């Protein structure tokens, strides 16, 4: 029985993603998860801007949240926060 191979596009040219590149989901890399205290947060957006994975989400109304599908738990957001509003919590503490 001949082995079957994946479909590879012409000349290895693939379309650009528009919202996320879900061919490389990285949320399962985490050993710690960022948690934000919105009371302490001043919405300076430094965490949002410096996330290598664009996984800190800022919304005018909702404030700071995290894209857990991709967040690698690198800890940069909690590290750069000038008011210590973000903690890194062990991933195992969460049920999901």
């Amino acid at each position, binding site marked *: 029985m001949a082995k079957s191979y*994946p479909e590879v596009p012409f*000349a*290895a*040219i693939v379309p650009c993603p528009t919202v996320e590149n879900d061919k490389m989901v990285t949320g399962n890399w985490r050993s710690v998860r960022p948690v934000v205290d919105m009371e302490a947060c001043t919405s300076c957006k430094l965490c949002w801007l410096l996330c290598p994975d664009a996984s800190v989400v800022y919304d005018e109304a909702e404030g700071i949240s995290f894209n857990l599908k991709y967040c690698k738990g690198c800890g940069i957001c909690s590290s750069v926060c000038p008011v210590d509003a973000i903690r890194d919590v062990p991933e195992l503490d969460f049920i999901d």
Partner: protein
Amino acid sequence: MTTKKRSTGLTAVCDAWQLVDIDVTASFPIRPYTAVMAEVAKRIANGQMKCEMVHAEGEHGQFSIAHGASMAGARATTGSSGVGLTYAAEVYSPIAGGRCPIQAVVGDRTLDPPGDFGSEHTDCLTMRDNGWIFGWAQDAQEALDNSLMYFRIGEDPDIMLPQIVAMDGYFVTHITQDYEVPDQDLVDRFLPPFKPKFRLDVNNPVIMGPQITPEMGPPLEWDRNVVMQRAKGKIVEVTEEFGRLFGRHYAPFVEEYMTEGAEMVFLLQGAHAVTCKSAVKYLREAGYPVGMLRLRWLRPFPDEALQAIASKFKVIGVIDTNTSYGAAGGGGVLLVETRAAISETPDKPIVQGFTSGLGGEVISHDEFFRMAEMMRKTLEAGQLVQSSTWVNFNDYV
């Protein structure tokens, strides 16, 4: 209106590039191909060609620039000779695998060491495994015609492969010859504007050439194999169309010369065929049952076309104007390819190798006569007498 012209093989290619309105070319000097770029530069400066010449930092840069231009959707060309070609080697597979149909002109030249400006096919032959399509022109007319045909074949949406218009250094690049420049209208009918399947375009954004897993490799390479084989059919189609439109009818793969009743044939490529034809006439008069086969394509190698005619002959003397040290059979690349192509052909001829014309030397009539005499010995023996003969070095007559 066709224009009769008297010039060199390189000028003829420049004429072709002008007719097809290339957008970008990348230049760098190395003997003997340099004059084509100087000619393009002149025509850009006087407004005859609407093309940008990028003065590359070297041959590796040239091919890379042409690659980038092609990815952006431009009809791009470049060229080189000798060690320039081997220097650029990194990018040959990326260009072919990226399916960018750029065209390179090669004035072939002996590889170092040391410096030798003379013609030899080895330089261009080192590119043969990378997925480009190419062949040798025997004169200026064929150089022009090949350039036109190669654009048409290479840019065909079913093909999309880069091409090399190769020609013998000095013999075709520099010797002044008569040729015809076809009519612009005819060329426009023959070759549509370049329309790539994908280009770098912010309105249709794509990612070109991402890292793949090993298991994605084989399907990509199978595609490249399929298209290289598909090119054979396209070559036949386009060569016939060219003949109908321009009135010059080329055998798609193998030109036969005086093969009627020939028991032995020379097999070679490029300009030495011109001398060979003359020698064959003399040899026939002297009673040698000899003819000539001239290979017009090296890649894709025309297995089927050779197999169809091989058994007409008893001996094929393959002439390699190249070196492939340590190759099977002790000769050059054409010897290996020819033997491989007809190895399973019933009633196949004996195939012996001759290495001649190295370093830029002419293959003289006398040398063709001696090769014919050696082939006659093989004919008489009914078997291989010597697998590979480096003419003047280990002749057996």
